[in-house]
């Protein structure tokens, strides 16, 4: 399950964009979005998801439960 950004809470501060190790975050329509195909939940990169750790608004970068969990390539 990749992360997603809840647009209504996003302040559009851009802090998450450069932190993403997968370059999965970009600006779209005034707020930021995560490309679910690129998001690896930061597994293998960092101990904690970077977008969650840097986001100034709690519970804005959250797991997208509608999608399957990320599988690390074998």
């Amino acid at each position: 399950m990749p992360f997603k950004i809840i647009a209504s809470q996003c302040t559009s501060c851009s802090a998450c964009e450069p932190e993403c190790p997968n370059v999965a975050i970009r600006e779209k329509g005034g707020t930021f979005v995560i490309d679910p195909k690129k998001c690896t939940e930061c597994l293998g990169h960092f101990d904690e998801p970077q977008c969650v750790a840097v986001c100034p608004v709690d519970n804005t970068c959250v797991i997208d439960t509608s999608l399957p969990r990320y599988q690390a390539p074998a």
Partner: protein
Amino acid sequence: MDVSAQHDASSNGGNVGEIMQAIAEHKGCGTTGGSGKASCGSQAGQGDLPTEIWEKVKNHPCYSEEAHHHYARMHVAVAPACNIQCNYCNRKYDCANESRPGVVSEKLTPEQAAKKVLAVASTIPQMTVLGIAGPGDPLANPEKTFKTFELIYNTAPDIKLCLSTNGLMLPDHVDTIAKYNVDHVTITINMVDPEIGAKIYPWIFYKHKRYTGYEAAKILTDRQLQGLEMLTERGILCKVNSVMIPGINDQHLVEVNKAVKSRGAFLHNIMPLISAPEHGTVFGLNGQRGPSAQELKALQDSCEGEMNMMRHCRQCRADAVGLLGEDRSAEFTTEKIMAMEVKYDADTRKAYQEKVEEERIAKVAAKQEELAELAGKSSDIKVLAAVATKGSGLINEHFGHAKEFQVYELSTAGAKFVGHRRVDLYCQGGYGEEDSLETIIRAINDCHAVFVAKIGGCPKGDLVKAGIEPVDQYAHEFIEKSAIAWFKAYLDKVNSGEVEHVERGDAAIRQGALISAA
């Protein structure tokens, strides 16, 4: 600055150590205070400042109280991201009517910002300083920040560059800061004790990890002080901003003052906490109060013996434009800038600024003359006076049009700028409203007099009733000269028994929005 660093600097053939020593010894960047010390702000000349330092501060409105009457600054909002969370900050809400750090109306790209700077510099020739202060942290957005500096450094080299940071990433960027000739850096340091820091900062983001509590505050304070030392070693002027939060760090800021002074900071700016529930900050929502005018002044006074204190900070927005007391950002929206034909004319700017210098010299000469007459007087009486001014060091604003009053402390030592009070526009639509008048009286309630260019009969009567003397006889004259003249006459009246000197009460620091429309 530690001893070894000082040694390194001088062994490199530079005289940085010497200069830093001079900075550390220099005290009082305001007008001449009770101790009679000469200072950068009290004269049009450089006073006791080394030439290198004087050249850096003489037309920087934030670093010289005296300069702020004449020179303007602008901030460009190119740095939206932040790497720490502060309990007094909430960036979620933007309102054009709100003036506080961390708030902007629109973000700019470095290219848009560079064009905006040139447009403003051409329209406002006394604009001498470009700062990047957010709305996040400039050093959490290093590419955008330094790209902007590079563009301006190349096109308008006469504009001074400065930045304001929380200090977390400062040690990593000191060399780049020096490379672009950024010679003024402000660091916000609210504590040097992580126990206190934990009450101000819920978390920081550092090296790919979110830290909280004591650990977060410990990293932050270590990095801030390290960054400060690195900057002063390189001869870059540093101002330290501290937010005064009653009950949390108010007593502690005396320690902060000592810590930053010993590391070579040039100026310390203690600002009142801005916290209202509608700002949505942690402190706003939990009812944390800000200090009163008297509490703030007492803390500033107690630190002043140690180093220069800034008292003219307007806690401006990250996209402010103009003199410190005004905000002209609405004239320079991206839409308007992009439509503008901008021609950068360095010669016109230079000619204009030379005129400003003449004005400054005349102002100081007038004050010196008046001071000479005060020389024979001796009295312990100190009073505060509020002044309605549009700038240039003149009493040139109508009482009803004033958006703020500047406050001077008058004593036999002279007139000393000690602060300012924001007020609502009293006169809107041509008639005054009683509620607004009450707001003004509360804001300047600690003053004995208010100097104005003009004032209507009604407010005049109410001010007198409140014990504040409205003074319009010095309309369009120099502030300090007039204030000293008035004070001299006041002392004479007290001595002859015509009036009885009584102490005034405390005053309120307004928390609300600065209404930019005027």
